[in-house]
């Protein structure tokens, strides 16, 4: 059978613009290319700016995980200027980032990923009584009645009958890869709708501390939201109660809706535990410092590296071993296309060599993406929930081990099942449960500290640029919902002279490097990967969505000398 060329562009239900090209043969994917088709150049724009403003600029890299670049930027500048933030500020950042994880992972599951597994049209033929019986067996959630599911189904019936299908137009409904019985499809559709209301509520935690969401405000040196129990305009008991209740509602939804749904749906797709593994190398920089951000030992989710799927050994992480390559990317280096550069030496000249739009294929091109290719000690690394849960598992993290065991037992599969498309989706759920529970611990610590009289939220010792050294550089790590993130900042004469970010989707969506090693998306797509109907590439969506792509993050440049040179070769 001849090779079929497959193009999926746009990949929808993600952040940003992603294109996947593949070759398929006899129902299998034999080759794959991942392309970022957007470039914004934010780090060029940051040059010469006040380092205290940097968080706001980098925050605009992504409005979905709207916290992560802001916090990583604050940490980088605080590292460069040796600023220690108060414990309260650290806890507030953990609460904000923790809620970001929980909210973002739930949205990913229901609104971005679910339609890859859930056939909305099939839910029409469900018996709502069956759905209620299934739901009651796995969860105490109050909306588990037959009446409730019938109501949802009636809405759906009227909607489909109207002929205006809106966002459900042209879905791959009826595709043979959909395996859920109608009753479970109806369950998922009902919770798809409930999750929409839920996410709007719990994210208000960001608004209380940061004034708004998306893009809450942060501050180098701490947080701007002052604490005063006797003022109506600050963090006070009323605000704390609101936060407490939001955390409780977040936990309830995660434990009574998301987690049971995830396990129920996964049970019908066990074959996906053997599909879409990919590189087998995993990197977690670790997240949620519970004491000092400089102390990796205080990270709630640990730091480390897993190589070649070997869970018995967690290797230490050293940021000095991160390098970026451009062999397949639309940039050029002064040392040539095969050089690898550490972010502190990062240089970039955008150089588009692709075909002139409109074009049809990129797979014959040497360079085919706006993503650079980050490598750790020369290796492509997968980052994200799976990497973090594997590192936690390998490091003996009790909470992670217990939940991993629960998943494996329920699905009756061994640990090797983790290295897969299904493993990635399950790891995201495990992590959500862990963090939803952890929010209470941080909240209690926060309240206890206030009770003890510590209301400090900001360290202003180095606020005045006159107290900064003439030259400084710093590294801010952060493990974001989509994976390991690093910001590297260099400051000269009190202004940013170089700013580099190596972000989760650059790791995961990276193109081939000089050795021809594929990036994690590409490697996953050729790992025992089916594609039954090339004109309805549902399976590609499953594996790509299991990474939760966030493309706006991926493309960034700042030239060492400040001069952006762009040249375009049009074919």
């Amino acid at each position, binding site marked *: 059978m001849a090779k079929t060329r497959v193009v999926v562009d746009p990949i929808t239900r993600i952040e940003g613009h992603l294109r996947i090209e593949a070759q398929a043969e006899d129902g299998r994917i034999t080759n794959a290319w991942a392309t970022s088709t*957007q470039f914004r150049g934010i780090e060029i724009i940051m040059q010469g700016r006040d380092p205290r403003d940097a968080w706001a600029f980098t925050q605009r890299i992504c409005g979905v995980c709207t916290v992560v670049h802001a916090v990583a930027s604050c940490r980088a500048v605080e590292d460069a200027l040796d600023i220690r933030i108060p414990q309260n500020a650290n806890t507030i950042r953990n609460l904000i980032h923790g809620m970001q994880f929980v909210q973002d992972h739930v949205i990913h599951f229901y609104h971005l990923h679910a339609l890859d597994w859930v056939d909305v049209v099939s839910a029409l033929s469900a018996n709502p009584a069956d759905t209620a019986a299934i739901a009651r067996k796995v969860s105490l959630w109050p909306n588990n009645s037959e009446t409730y599911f019938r109501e949802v189904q009636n809405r759906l019936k009227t*909607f489909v009958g109207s002929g205006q299908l809106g*966002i459900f137009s042209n879905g791959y409904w009826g595709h043979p890869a959909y395996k859920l019985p109608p009753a479970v499809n109806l369950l998922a559709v009902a919770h798809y709708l409930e999750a929409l209301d839920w996410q709007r509520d719990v994210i208000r935690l960001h608004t209380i501390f940061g*004034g708004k969401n998306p893009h809450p405000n942060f501050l180098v040196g701490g947080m701007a939201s002052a604490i005063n129990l006797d003022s109506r*305009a*600050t963090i006070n008991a009323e605000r704390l109660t609101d936060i407490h209740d939001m955390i409780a509602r977040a936990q309830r939804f995660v434990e009574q809706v998301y987690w049971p749904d995830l396990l129920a749906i996964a049970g019908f797709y066990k074959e996906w535990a053997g599909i879409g593994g990919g590189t087998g190398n995993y990197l977690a920089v670790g997240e949620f410092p519970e004491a000092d951000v400089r102390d990796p030992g205080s990270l709630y989710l640990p730091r480390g590296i897993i190589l070649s799927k070997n869970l018995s050994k967690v290797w230490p992480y050293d940021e000095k071993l991160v390098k970026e390559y451009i062999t397949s990317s639309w940039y050029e280096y002064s040392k040539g296309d095969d050089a690898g550069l550490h972010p502190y030496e990062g240089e970039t000249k955008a150089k588009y060599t692709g075909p002139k739009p*409109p074009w049809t294929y990129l797979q014959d091109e040497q360079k085919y993406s706006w993503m650079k290719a980050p490598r750790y000690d020369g290796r492509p690394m997968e980052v994200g929930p799976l990497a973090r849960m594997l590192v936690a598992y390998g490091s003996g993290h009790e909470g992670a081990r217990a939940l991993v065991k629960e998943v494996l037992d329920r699905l009756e599969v061994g640990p090797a099942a983790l290295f897969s498309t299904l493993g990635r989706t399950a790891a995201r759920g495990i992590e959500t449960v862990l963090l939803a529970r952890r929010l209470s611990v941080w909240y209690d610590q926060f309240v206890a500290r206030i009770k003890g009289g510590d209301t400090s939220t*900001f360290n202003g010792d180095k*606020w005045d640029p006159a107290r900064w050294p003439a030259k400084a550089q710093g590294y801010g790590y952060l493990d974001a919902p989509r994976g390991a993130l690093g910001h590297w900042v260099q400051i000269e004469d009190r202004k940013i002279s170089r700013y580099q970010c190596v972000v989760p989707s650059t790791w995961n969506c990276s193109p081939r490097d000089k050795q021809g090693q594929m990036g994690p998306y590409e490697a996953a797509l050729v790992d025992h990967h089916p594609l039954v109907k090339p004109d309805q590439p549902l399976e590609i969506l499953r594996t790509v969505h299991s990474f939760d792509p966030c493309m*706006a993050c991926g493309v960034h440049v700042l030239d060492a000398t400040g001069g952006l040179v762009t040249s375009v070769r049009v074919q």
Partner: protein
Amino acid sequence: MYLPTSHAWAEGESLGAYLDKRGVSRRDFLAFCTEMTAILGLGSMMTPRLAQALAAQKRPTVVWLSLQECTGCVESVLRTAEPTIGDLVLDVVSLDYQHNIMAAAGHHAEAALQDTIAKNRGEYLLVVTGSVPLADGGIYTTIGGRTAKVILEEAATGAKAVIAIGACAHWGNIQAARPNPTGAVGVDAIVKDKPVVNIAGCPPIGDVVTATIVHFLTFGRVPALDYDGRPLFAYGARIHDQCPKRANFDAGQFVEAFDDEAARKGWCLYHVGCKGPATYSPCPIFLWNTRTSWPIGAGHPCLGCTERHFWDTMTPFYGRLPDVAGFGVERYADTFGAALAIGAAAGVAAHAIATGVHQMRQRRKLPVLETPSQGQGGGHGQD
């Protein structure tokens, strides 16, 4: 929101009939309309007309293009304030193309777009988030191998009206900040032959989007706009003139450093860089995220994100706005008020005096700090 399944609607059915069937009482609906009327600044006389217009609407088609952006504006719209009826009214639309939530991908998604545009020519509402990079032939954002500019021009041709949501679609936003490496511009630099409403902000409050769409459906035209294409009902007043901390400003009660005693009292943030005096935005009135709070309310200075080129004109963000014409009174109030504020009672007096003087000056239309659009990448209407 935007989930037709949650509020199924039969073809040809009016909103009134639909609401009846969904168990939404006429009273609830009128209460919602009253709220919308208030947000739109229309006065209670308009409530019956709004209710009538909405109830008669069929579901008009909306096409939503996501171009060069961060998706924050989509997220903001997902957080709109009215949890039940607000969803219903946004559901007045049939959202036939939207990258972030639509089921279809690749060819099937693009087919949905072409189909929608062809079938609803001249009738659909085009919503755009993200800027349009023009440099180097538009190669910095492509979808399905086509440039953002080509995609926008094609979708705009058959649109009845265009709503540009967020600073990127408005003027290019951070991409267009100095030195604008990709040549990013806003929608109104490309679409010239029909109304473009700019819902300003990075991101804007989702409720402003809701209200603008309701306005369009109710009155069959876009709301009145300011010089920069922004709806007056939302962007008609300075933050400074609506700020709950205004009394502190007038009384000379300023935060001088974050987390100082003044910050813990919730005083004015002008000295630590607040751009409220130069920013037209509904933040202090609409508030954010189901009216939970807003940036200044959470202790951080306003960044001025509803104004063009704020990355260049409002930075450094923690620098105090320069003394410009229009600040004379406030500066006076600053010094004068600070002296008086030693006594609490005197502070109240200072507030009264300064506010009165300020209002007089406002009535005389003295200039306030306007945001110049000298940045790169094309100002409003290409200047």
